[in-house]
């Protein structure tokens, strides 16, 4: 793995709208290596009252060679860690670990990609959109938030997307409602072949269900609490349905014996943060989840442009 500890220098701080702070950090070693969907884990000061690093998905990258590449992160104020970061200015030094996690799998042939972001969760989708466009894919975007102030960088989203749709729960921008209210029509209109999404769990869950009903592969990026970010603490786990072995026909019949093995806890920091949405058990303890209308893993996917998603979910070798 290519993760490393690095000392970065803040190039600039700015704000997107009222709520979101942005830090651009000169971190060439990370900037040259990071892939969309990966994250960095940043130490928020030396003082020992809040010791844990804070994880941030990379919002934008500017590759400028081995000496000056920058990464940009965006965040809202959630507590002492983000408050500390919001006060950094040019030339401040930051201690970061990255690039961490497994990013989005990009389509292996030209594809129509729909990116669905909720609030600040849209952050990694901008970096992804840049990469997808560089590789010649069509990019469409749905951004959603509670209100217009919580939409992340609408202007750039419109610039990057062939079709860009906005939803807000209070109707202050775009359509009144949620991203899933317009997801079906957008998929049909844009002839979407793969969906990438990041945001709160209920949104990821809802987007996954729609994607599965269209038999479209869906990659979800989760944002979990984590202590280490590099795979040792086991706090950031997500329950994943175990890929069903097609050779065995046992699990359907007896809920009792099969239940124990119906899911595994996978580390969001190393096996994720990007997962096959159809494998993730969202919201709640796994034993309360019935076998919802999700296609089991391994179901043939219409025109799958990503290849074998199960491969993408294999635990890392090292």
């Amino acid at each position, binding site marked *: *793995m290519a993760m490393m500890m690095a000392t970065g220098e803040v190039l600039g701080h700015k704000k997107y709208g009222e709520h979101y702070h942005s830090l651009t950090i000169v971190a060439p070693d990370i900037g040259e290596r990071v892939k969309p969907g990966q994250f960095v884990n940043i130490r928020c000061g030396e003082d020992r009252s809040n010791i*844990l690093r804070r994880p941030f998905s990379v919002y934008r990258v500017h590759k400028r060679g081995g000496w000056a590449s920058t990464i940009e992160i965006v965040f809202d104020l959630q507590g002492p860690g983000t408050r500390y970061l919001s006060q950094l200015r040019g030339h401040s030094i930051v201690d970061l670990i990255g690039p961490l996690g497994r990013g989005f799998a990009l389509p292996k042939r030209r594809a129509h990609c729909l990116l669905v972001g909720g609030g600040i969760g849209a952050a990694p989708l901008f970096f992804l959109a840049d990469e997808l466009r560089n590789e010649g894919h069509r990019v469409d975007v749905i951004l959603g938030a509670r209100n217009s102030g919580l939409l992340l960088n609408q202007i750039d989203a419109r610039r990057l997307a062939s079709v860009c749709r906005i939803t807000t729960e209070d109707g202050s921008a775009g359509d009144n409602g949620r991203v899933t209210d317009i997801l079906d029509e957008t998929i049909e209109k844009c002839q979407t072949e793969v969906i990438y999404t990041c945001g709160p769990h209920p949104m990821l869950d809802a987007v996954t269900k729609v994607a599965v009903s269209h038999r479209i592969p869906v990659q979800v990026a989760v944002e979990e609490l984590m202590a280490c970010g*590099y795979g040792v603490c*086991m706090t950031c786990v997500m*329950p994943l349905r175990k890929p069903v072995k097609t050779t065995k026909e046992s699990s359907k019949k007896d809920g009792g014996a099969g239940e124990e093995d119906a899911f595994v*806890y996978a580390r969001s920091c190393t096996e994720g943060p990007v997962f096959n949405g159809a494998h993730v058990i969202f919201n709640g303890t796994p034993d309360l989840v019935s076998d919802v209308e999700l296609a089991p893993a391994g179901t043939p996917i219409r025109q799958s442009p990503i290849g074998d998603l199960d491969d993408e979910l294999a635990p890392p070798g090292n």
Partner: protein
Amino acid sequence: MTNSHHPGTDVGEPDLSVQLGSISLSNPILVASGTFGAGREGSNFIDVSKLGGIIVKSMTLNPWKGKPTPRMTETPSGMLNAIGIQNKGVDHFLAEDLPWLMKREATVFASIAGNTVEEFVRVADKLRTGARGIAGVEVNISCPNLEDRNNMFSHSTTSTAAVVEGVKKALPRVPVFPKLSPNVTSLPEIASAALEAGADGLSLINTVFGMAIDIETRRPKLAGTMGGLSGPAIRPIAVRAVHEVHRAFPHVPLIGQGGVADATDALELMLAGASAVAVGTMNFVNPRSARDICAGISTYMKTHRLTDLSELVGALKLED
């Protein structure tokens, strides 16, 4: 991240080697169980052979899934966790992790856990036949996240003794360090029971039982309701525990751990009586903590003209 010294190969660098009972360590700084996996991830940042030792994540007889999420919440100067020893089982350790560590010449301490005495003994049996080359075994009888929290082994002298006796019988030639809980009325009494049952040394302390509540949802912040508190917040408890047990049993080798973040913290535990010190939660923050702490100890030795670290162990001055 300024002026970090690397323990170099310069001539004149102090010798950091120590004895932990019968075990020779190249330096006194270990990484604590559950904070460094089995070394693979951390080896992106640090050479595992340069660690004083690695106490691997606790292993159980069969794989354990662990508890539901959320498993962690940050607290002032520390964190609470209820992970529930998610691990792939002793067989996986023997087949995958131990060979990897041995190849890299790491000093390995296995950590074993179980829900019953029999489970501990069966893991120990597997280690006897399969784990040649391990330096020692930590017996995790103090994890606050087991099924039956009311019966933590290290909360009673009889169950502490039962586990230690069984493990020691299975592993007569391997130094065994029961890891004790600080959440007891009299730590020396538990320590005494462990030693009488055959413990070669003791590991002090495991996390401290704690809890946090979200006032908006009125729900516990951990899915497991209660959890183990770790980090700098608990260091004074660790210092007290090591001091108390060292006073009662001055010749027993102790692994001190709990909230160690830098060389000062490690030296504090050594003065209290620890021969070796494990760094835990800080590995999450700085995966090179062990290396940085060694560098700091090296500087301290030069400043104080120390040539033998063992001079410090238990060198606390009381009323003179």
